[in-house]
Every structure is written in C-alpha cells, then in structure tokens.
C-alpha cells in the first residue's frame, strides 16, 4: 500500500500544530492546505508577501491584486498581514517561519537536499527555495520515495545541485516517514504492507528503525473525498 500525493499532504497536515507559521512549496506541499485541521489556527506564509493565505477565491470574490507564491489568485484569512519582499524574506531567512514544507529531487542522509534544479534542466530558476532552505526553523520534505524509474530519492550524497546543506528534519514519502537525526536516518512510520526491509531496499542510505516505528495510519479517503492511499 502507498500514499497518494494527497495522502502525503494529509499525513503532513496531522503533524502541524496551532500557532505555527508554515510555507508550502509547489507540488505535494501546496496540497497540505486542503487538509489542515479547521479547528487549529495555522498561518500560511507566501513569499511574495502574505501571512495568512486563504483558499482560492470564487469568481465573485476574486481580487486581481492578490496572488500567492505559485502566482495563482488567493484570498486572505481573518488576521492576515500583507507586506513587501523585504519583510517576507526577513521572516524566511531570519528563522521566523516555523515550517517550510518543500518538494525535493533528493535528500541526503545528512539533511542536504536538492529541489531547485534537475540535472540538465535547460533554464534554471531558484525563487525562494534557498532562503527557506537555510532559514525556516524546520524543513519537512514531501516527495515520492523513489523516482518513476525506481531509483531512491533518499541517498547518501545528493547528485542533483543542492538547495541547502544539513537542513532537512523529516521526510514524508508515499511509503514512509523518515527523520534526519544527527547520526543518520531514522525510520518512524511505514505504510501498511511494506516491511522495514522493503523500505530500506528502496532507500539509498542506511535507516535506523525507531524504537516506536509503526504503521502509518491514513484513511482511504479524505473528508473532501480525495483518495489518500492506493
């Protein structure tokens, strides 16, 4: 059994807490917004200058002057704040954003990660990835456990161009949750139907098994009907 992209997002959302300030990268991370507990106040940060990003607007309440980091139109939650790029990057680089949840091409066992440039990509673009990479209090990576060719994305050393060094704290994949500890990788949760040996086989660096390592507990569908595992 493995998680869908929505499933990974759902699982990450369970680990966020009231009062946290969270920046969601493109890809799986933005889906996390759909699974936040509505009873907990979690403020979403958008690097173009918003703290308190709300859901996409309906046609009738669309504001042409309000976009989020992905360039799509957005709304604001009650208590949101708007600011310029200087203040936004003070938040990001200065250690004020609680979590950056980012996609990645590779994560190394020492917490290095690569998420901005695929080898051989013709036109590079970096955006705020490196600033979040060095500055957010916690870097959570959301990605598939292996590439679509079956190659491990959790590796001993990144081969893709680095985003930041030694900064990833936790990796959420379609198969497992892996923590990056000072002395290496620790397997914390595994999707049902996979043994820890299965996960190790799909991981490019040695995994310690956490004493309390357990099966991941994710329902088949979310309350919005999205399929979370397959």
């Amino acid at each position, binding site marked *: 059994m493995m998680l869908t992209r929505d499933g990974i997002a759902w699982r990450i959302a369970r680990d966020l807490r009231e009062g946290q300030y969270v920046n*969601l990268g*493109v890809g799986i991370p*933005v889906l996390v917004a759909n699974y936040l507990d509505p009873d907990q106040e979690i403020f979403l940060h*958008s*690097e*173009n*200058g*918003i703290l308190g990003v709300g859901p*996409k607007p309906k046609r009738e309440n*669309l*504001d*042409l*002057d*309000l*976009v*989020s*980091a*992905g*360039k*799509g*139109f*957005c709304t604001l939650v009650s208590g949101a704040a*708007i*600011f*310029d*790029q*200087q203040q936004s*990057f003070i938040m*990001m*680089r200065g250690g004020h954003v609680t979590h950056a949840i980012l996609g990645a091409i590779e994560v190394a066992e020492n917490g290095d990660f690569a998420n901005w*440039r695929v080898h051989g990509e*013709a*036109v*590079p*673009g*970096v*955006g*705020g*990835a*490196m*600033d979040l*990479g*060095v*500055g957010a209090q916690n870097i959570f990576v959301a990605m598939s456990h292996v590439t679509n060719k079956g190659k491990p994305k959790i590796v001993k050393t990144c081969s893709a*161009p*680095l*985003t*930041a*060094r030694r900064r990833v704290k936790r990796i959420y994949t379609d198969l497992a949750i892996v923590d990056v500890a000072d002395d290496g990788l620790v397997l914390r949760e595994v999707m049902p139907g996979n043994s820890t040996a299965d996960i190790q086989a799909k991981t490019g660096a040695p995994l310690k098994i956490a004493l309390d390592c357990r099966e991941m507990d994710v329902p088949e569908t979310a309350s919005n009907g999205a399929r979370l595992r397959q």
Partner: protein
Amino acid sequence: MIDKTLSSCAQAVAHVHDGATVMFGGFGSVGVPGRLVDALRDQGARDLTIISNGASDAALSPLFEAGRVKKLIASFPSPTSHQFRARYLNGEVQLELVPQGTLVERIRAGGSGLGGIYTPTGVGTELAEGKEVRVIDGREYLLELPLKADFAFVKAHLGDRLGNLMYRGTMRNFNMVMATAGSVVAAEVERIVPAGEIPPEQVHTPGIFIDHVVQAERHPRLVELPKEGAQA
C-alpha cells in the same frame, strides 16, 4: 508646486539609453508596470540589463520579443517565460540567477548605501560559485554585492504629484525595494490622487524615492486569469 506626474508612459521611459540597467517590479501578474514595459519596447533602447524577479510573458515578453534585452538578473524565470527562455537557449540573452531573498537584499543594499551583505542563502550550492565565503560566529555566509539600476519602473495602486505611492494586495512585492535603487524611478499607478489624500501612515513608498508618476489602466496582458495548476 512639485509635480512629478507625467501625461504618458512614453515620457517616463524617454531617457532610457542603450545598455541601461532597468529594474521592473512585480510578482506574477501583480504589481507589474505593464504599460511602462510596452512604452520601453516602443522607445527602442537596446542591450538592456533587466532586473526582475521573473520574466513571465505577461510581464516582460514585449522586451524579449523585440530583442532589446542583453541580460536578465532574476530569481525565477518560470516555465511560463517562453519569450525569455527561447532567447536564453539560443544564447541571445544572458541570465544571472540570484536566490529571491538575495535579490531583495542586493537591491536593498543598492538603495540604502550599503557596500554588501553576508547571507547564509546559497552557501554550498552552485549559486555560491565565485563568491566569497566567510565564517561569522560559526556559520558560513556568502558576500553579496549591491544592485542598482539606471531606471527602476514600479507599479502602485495610488500615487500623487509628490510621488507618494500606496499599493494594494500583494503589489508591494519588489516595487517597494526597487523604488529605492534606481537613479531614475518612475511609477505606473492606477489612479493619481490629490497630494494629502493618501494618509501619512499609509504611504508605502514616500515621494523622496520617486521621480515620475504616470496614470495608466492595468495592462490587459495582466488581467487574464492564470491557468489552473499555476495556483499555489
């Protein structure tokens, strides 16, 4: 009476010379001075170095299409920057890629008289190549140098004859910092209001930074709804 207003975008770009360095504010479709982009295309200056967060077609395509750009300094020339990408790939346009927060700080340093800043962003990555690394208080930082421009073109919601600007929504983005870093700074605004109408506490860019203010309707390129999937 001070009057920084101009009656046309053409006047605002009239003195841009060949080889000039030009900043353009904007992030996504918001806060882009689209009418000034067109006016600069029409004006004809060549070999421009453009400083902008991105290079999306909606923002800057006229200048790339007309072959006016020699170099782009940006953080995220996204997949929707078709006009830029084509010219970058055929070698016509150079690219200096700068992490977004570093781009902001370099422009801020330029506008605020600093000689440079040490940032942790990019240490150990390929964007650190050729840059001084320095350990301060046990952590590694890169030395990053100021960016200034001959012209900065910004976009605001309201402006007055004194050059005071007020933004709305996420328009502030790069506009506020770029307004400090151009030798000549022109603002495209949606509405020129009488001096004093913007409350002193809501003036986001004080007139001291602004040379010209021109009123222009939002460019139709920047009104289209983005495709689904571009949402974040």
